[in-house]
């Protein structure tokens, strides 16, 4: 590569980092707590993209970077590599998800019913400018129902499979360290399904939306209908040294199934991520639905969308262009000057030729 080692920037580099941090100001545990409490959906997005679930660490990363999301995710991904892996939990099954929200745009009367849960889907988007004038904002309290909602529901696709609307998948039975893991193996193509879905789970939300949206607008082969969208908490099923299994706590997860008519049955795409992030899951599931048979180099082809939605790699490649490229650029200038000189020489010699 045509990079060149340079000297003379050490002080400037040190001072530039100081300037960044000085302009942002100091932060402490209290700031981290405020970020965690006030921005739960941003925390979820960062945890999903970092593929590291801990609200304190995500809030710390946001506080430390001033909300520069790519830097925050990079900090968390880097920190993750310093930690030992204690166990691989048992795979989460659909009917063990503690469900807060479960809706379907495909079927009105899904078993278990439509439960909206926490959402702004039907809210008026009005900025609360009164707050800037000193008014407080206190949300209206929920009026609880007399009976609790059933916490556990199977997936909508399981019900459809019972009704012969789509193929019932056979669980693969892979568990523990046998499950393919992108953090320990390279992504190769054609990609293993476990790699594809893991990569989408930790993908950058905006990238997934951009490519998923391209498919939704018509650059894909299948138009998605949301079969099931679910926000839930999942149990972390770990194993005691004596062999007993137990839940070591819950984490927020979101998932989406999207379907499209495919012959006599429905085609289905699936995606899930850590934290609650509906846009990412619907977009990722749309890419999954469209990927079989997609044209090479199209937005819905797996190599294209997996490489281009990996946020740490793509943002890292983008910002590397800020690094000194003096030699490559000098080489380009030399080539331009050379071409210009040759052209001038050519035109001079043609001027000197005698007229016929």
């Amino acid at each position, binding site marked *: 590569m045509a990079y060149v080692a340079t000297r003379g920037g050490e002080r400037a580099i040190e001072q530039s980092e100081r300037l960044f941090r000085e302009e942002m100001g100091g932060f402490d545990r209290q700031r981290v707590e405020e970020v965690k409490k006030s921005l739960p959906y941003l925390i979820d997005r960062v945890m999903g993209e970092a593929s590291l679930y801990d609200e304190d660490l995500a809030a710390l990363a946001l506080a430390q970077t001033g909300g520069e999301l790519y830097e925050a995710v990079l900090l968390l991904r880097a920190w993750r590599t310093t930690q030992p*892996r204690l166990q691989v939990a048992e795979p989460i099954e659909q009917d063990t998800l503690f469900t807060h929200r479960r809706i379907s745009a495909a079927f009105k009367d899904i078993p278990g019913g439509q439960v909206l849960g926490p959402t702004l889907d039907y809210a008026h988007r009005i900025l609360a400018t009164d707050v800037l004038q000193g008014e407080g904002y206190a949300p209206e309290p929920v009026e609880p129902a007399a009976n609790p909602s059933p916490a556990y529901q199977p997936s909508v696709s399981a019900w459809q499979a019972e009704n012969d609307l789509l193929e019932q998948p056979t669980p693969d039975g892979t568990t523990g360290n046998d499950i393919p893991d992108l953090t320990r193996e390279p992504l190769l193509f054609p990609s293993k399904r476990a790699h594809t879905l893991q990569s989408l789970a930790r993908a950058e939300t905006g990238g997934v939306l951009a490519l998923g949206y391209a498919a939704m607008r018509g650059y894909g082969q299948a138009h998605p209908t949301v079969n099931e969208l679910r926000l839930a908490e999942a149990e972390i099923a770990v194993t005691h040294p004596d062999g007993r299994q137990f839940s070591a706590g819950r984490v927020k997860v979101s998932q989406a199934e999207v379907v499209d008519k495919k012959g006599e049955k429905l085609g289905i795409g699936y995606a899930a991520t850590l934290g609650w992030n509906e846009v990412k899951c619907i977009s990722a599931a749309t890419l999954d639905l469209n990927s079989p048979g997609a044209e090479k180099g199209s937005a819905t082809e797996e190599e294209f969308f997996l490489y281009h939605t990996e946020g740490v790699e793509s943002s890292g490649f983008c910002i590397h262009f800020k690094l000194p490229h003096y030699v490559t650029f000098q080489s380009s200038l030399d080539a331009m000057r050379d071409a210009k000189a040759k052209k001038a020489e050519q035109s001079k010699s043609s001027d000197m030729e005698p007229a016929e």
Partner: protein
Amino acid sequence: MDDTLGTLARADEAKLKTFAETLIHELGEIEVLKSQSGLVMLPIRDTAKGVAFHLGEVLMSEAHIRKGDAEGYGMRRGHDLEASMAMALVDLAMATNVRVSDCKAFCDAQAEALQNADDDLLRRVEATRVNMETF
């Protein structure tokens, strides 16, 4: 799934630590095999093809202790080595018949508190159920 361990893993951390502290004297000398934080990889099964894949890792605290042949184990979310050790102490106490009825009473009270919190949440969720009519 073991409900007692599941309850201890989600029990109120301050109450768990306070209760576990009362067990230390009676447990006597114990060997600490592990007291550390680290990551647990969390897979989920995809509903389209039935494949298990990794969602990402969760920060956990783990404690593993031993007294004679009996083992105590604690694992909880987040970085709190005292809380995971407290869980392991309660687990070891029950495995070695130390104040078992107190341990069970503590777990029952915590299980009830967790259930009440879940019920309260799910009643609020139920308020968002759509009773759809078409016309």
